[in-house]
């Protein structure tokens, strides 16, 4: 005989403000199987949990229903409470009367009625609950970091520091990512390369870190603690074990027309190249698409030049398969292509740049050696106009609805750098709002205005046109309610940032979810910001949302802490809600095996005792350590032999019954 206790939480006024909890208690007392019902202000509090524990003991409860907030919030809490009271934690069901009821319904009568129905459904389910026990699995003590920018590097260094092996997969030939392209960093104006490259070197040299550059994740199988990842090491056509990074070959290469990605295409590189002087690993790579040898079969100059005999035209992609306990997404961002915004003339005039291009133009290692000149004709500019929010906070559909967060600050940085180095150049910034939350951020912006005399104009630019070799900028000055017509030599667009496009396919392999903007979804927006909803997958850096460098590094380290926490565990407790097959009902048809995404189902010949009759049959067997409990198999099974513990056919039908009663 089941004895169910129902505990109705007020959640202060969150629930009790719209749901008459007293009536819910009265109603559920009438339900068959309910031996106890009570309400309390905060069921999740210590005293609320004590109320549950003492009721379990006093009334000999066999199962518990908590009518409260979403099970995604406190199911784990109440399972622990039940366990502490000596109940099996799987004898707990939650009726979500907050998110699914009190918060969305305004009418008390309606909300109370619905809360009672939801409570009944939970009671119906708990009456069919069975005690479950979880198995355990080992944890592979190695982490994979996907993306070798500052986020990935920081996460990997922290994990390595804790003594665990970690691999970084980076699609580019070098780690370093976007930060390597930056000139100075706000608000301190220290040189980006100066603070990044030592970390790159550390990552390359750390004995716990292995770099897979010019590599991509090919496939991911498995689950938390036990991922199996295949990495495609793309053929560099250069032997990493022999190349000394001397760069001879890169200078001799006759193919010189390839746009240099590192300098945002503002200059060119050879078909064999080293992305930049501080690249880690410093190994040349042949871009086969542009290499004369690969295109025509001739040339081979690099091969003849290389004294280390490192050139290997026959090199093939290599697939490496490894096991990992945890996977970190650190796939970063790219800048959107602003040519979709025709009014700014990007792509039409070379003197209209994105901020990242401007960053390279200012950089001593950039295409102009750090001399600020107009890309169109090399003249020294007199006036530069910066336009903010290009494609950010844009609900028109052309851009991104979100704030890219870093543009206000780097534009202030650009303005200061220009004014500092070239006091003769005047700078105007068009902005919608200037957002400077961050340590010393607003002070930095004020310096741009007050010390460096940067003209900030609140308003948007309507048109940028070329006129007589210069640019004409037409914009509105909202504070003074007038139209401005400015002559400029350069226009710099603070284009929105968006998640790197590779994130989507990788996330798909990891079964980690992505939000409407393509950023990775965190397990909880406030409380679990560095974990993805998929166990064992963690988020580092801008792949989760726009961030500046300090925030990225902070999140990267937080992410590492979570990974270390996971890798430190000796064993992981498995999901107890796994599929199980009744051999007496199993047809042996293999339908379940075909739909299982984890390969958790196999078939065996078994000797069965079918109500006293002995027979051998081919039956499905579930590997409980591998099963993740999706339930795909249960529906593929026509005989109903396959069922899912914790979400059995009977339980779900009981819920349907209770709701439709």
């Amino acid at each position, binding site marked *: 005989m089941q004895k169910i206790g129902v505990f109705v939480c007020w959640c202060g006024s969150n629930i009790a403000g719209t749901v008459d909890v007293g009536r819910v208690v009265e109603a559920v007392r009438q339900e068959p199987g309910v031996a106890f019902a009570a309400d309390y202000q905060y069921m999740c509090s210590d005293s609320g949990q004590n109320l549950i524990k003492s009721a379990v003991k006093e009334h000999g409860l066999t199962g518990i229903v908590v009518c409260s907030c979403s099970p995604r919030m406190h199911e784990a809490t109440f399972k622990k409470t039940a366990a502490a009271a000596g109940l099996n934690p799987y004898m707990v069901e939650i009726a979500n009367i907050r998110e699914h009821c009190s918060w969305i319904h305004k009418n008390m009568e309606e909300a109370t009625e619905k809360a009672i129905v939801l409570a009944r459904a939970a009671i119906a389910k708990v009456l069919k609950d069975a005690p479950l026990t979880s198995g355990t699995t080992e944890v592979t003590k190695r982490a994979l970091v996907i993306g070798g920018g500052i986020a990935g590097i920081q996460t990997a260094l922290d994990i390595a520091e804790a003594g665990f092996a970690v691999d970084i997969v980076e699609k580019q030939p070098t780690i370093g990512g976007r930060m390597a392209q930056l000139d100075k960093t706000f608000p301190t104006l220290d040189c980006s390369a100066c603070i990044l490259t030592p970390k790159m070197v550390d990552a390359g040299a750390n004995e716990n870190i292995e770099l897979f550059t010019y590599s991509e994740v090919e496939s991911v199988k498995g689950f938390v603690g036990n991922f199996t990842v295949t990495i495609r090491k793309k053929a560099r056509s250069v032997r990493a074990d022999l190349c000394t990074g001397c760069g001879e070959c890169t200078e001799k290469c006759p193919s010189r027309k390839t746009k240099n990605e590192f300098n945002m295409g503002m200059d060119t590189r050879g078909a064999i190249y080293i992305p930049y002087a501080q690249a880690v690993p410093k190994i040349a790579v042949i871009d086969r698409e542009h290499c004369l040898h690969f295109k025509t079969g001739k040339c081979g100059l690099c091969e003849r030049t290389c004294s280390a005999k490192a050139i290997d035209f026959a090199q093939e992609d290599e697939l490496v398969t490894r096991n990992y306990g945890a996977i970190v997404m650190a796939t970063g961002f790219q800048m959107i292509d602003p040519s979709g915004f025709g009014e700014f003339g990007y792509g039409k005039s070379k003197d209209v740049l994105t901020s990242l291009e401007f960053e390279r133009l200012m950089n001593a290692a950039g295409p102009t050696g750090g001399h600020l000149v107009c890309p169109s004709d090399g003249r020294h500019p007199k006036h530069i106009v910066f336009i903010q929010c290009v494609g950010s906070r844009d609900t028109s559909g052309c851009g991104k609805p979100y704030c890219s967060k870093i543009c206000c600050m780097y534009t202030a940085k650009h303005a200061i750098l220009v004014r500092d180095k070239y006091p003769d150049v005047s700078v105007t910034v068009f902005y919608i709002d200037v957002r400077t939350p961050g340590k010393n951020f607003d002070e930095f912006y004020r310096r741009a205005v007050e010390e460096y005399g940067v003209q900030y104009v609140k308003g948007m630019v309507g048109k940028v046109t070329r006129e007589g070799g210069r640019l004409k900028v037409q914009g509105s000055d909202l504070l003074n309610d007038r139209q401005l017509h400015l002559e400029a030599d350069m226009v710099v667009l603070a284009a929105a940032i968006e998640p790197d496009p590779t994130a989507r396919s990788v996330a*798909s392999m990891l079964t980690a979810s992505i939000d409407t903007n393509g950023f990775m979804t965190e397990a909880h927006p406030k409380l679990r910001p560095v974990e993805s909803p998929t166990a064992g997958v963690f988020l580092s850096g801008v792949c989760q949302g726009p961030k500046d460098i300090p925030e990225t590094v902070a999140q990267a380290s937080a992410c590492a802490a979570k990974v270390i926490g996971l890798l430190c565990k000796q064993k992981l407790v498995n999901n107890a809600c796994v599929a199980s097959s009744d051999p007496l009902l199993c047809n042996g048809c293999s339908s379940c095996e075909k739909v299982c995404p984890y390969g958790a189902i196999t078939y065996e010949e078994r000797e069965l005792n079918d109500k006293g009759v002995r027979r051998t049959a081919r039956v499905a067997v579930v590997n409980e350590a591998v099963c993740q409990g999706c339930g795909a198999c249960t529906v593929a099974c026509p005989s109903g032999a396959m069922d899912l513990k914790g979400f059995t056919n009977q339980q779900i039908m009981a819920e349907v019954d209770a709701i439709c009663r």
Partner: protein
Amino acid sequence: MPLNTSAPAQTGEYRPLIVAFCCNWCSYAGADLAGSSRLTYPADVKIIRVPCSCRVNPLFVLKAFERGADGVILCGCHPGDCHYTTGNYYTRRRMTLLFSMLDYLGIERERTRVEWVSAAEGAKFSATMNDFARTIRALGENRKLRDLRCGN
């Protein structure tokens, strides 16, 4: 106890019964987000949590109708974003065929629906439920499937 004193629903007004199966990872979380964003939808909608939309057996859908539901909606992760990689792809085929069969039998095709709602789409969840509830209210009570039985 703090009480909200808004008026009770009009008596006698037709209130449909809508069962919504929501996958734990996306749509149930989307429903939670609708809740925490206070995006309302009719109380006619009652949510049943399943680990994945692929856990929903056509039997459950039919059972809901048989027990008096006027509309049944399934919500899962967007195709390609399934927490279990492929579950919602199977759901899509299964429900396409099931709904096609119900339509073939002459059951109003608007009574069944599948929507993909991510954990970030609280607004979509609320909008979907509002729209579905409005559709079902307009259709009225579901008699057909109950009457379409053997031997009566």
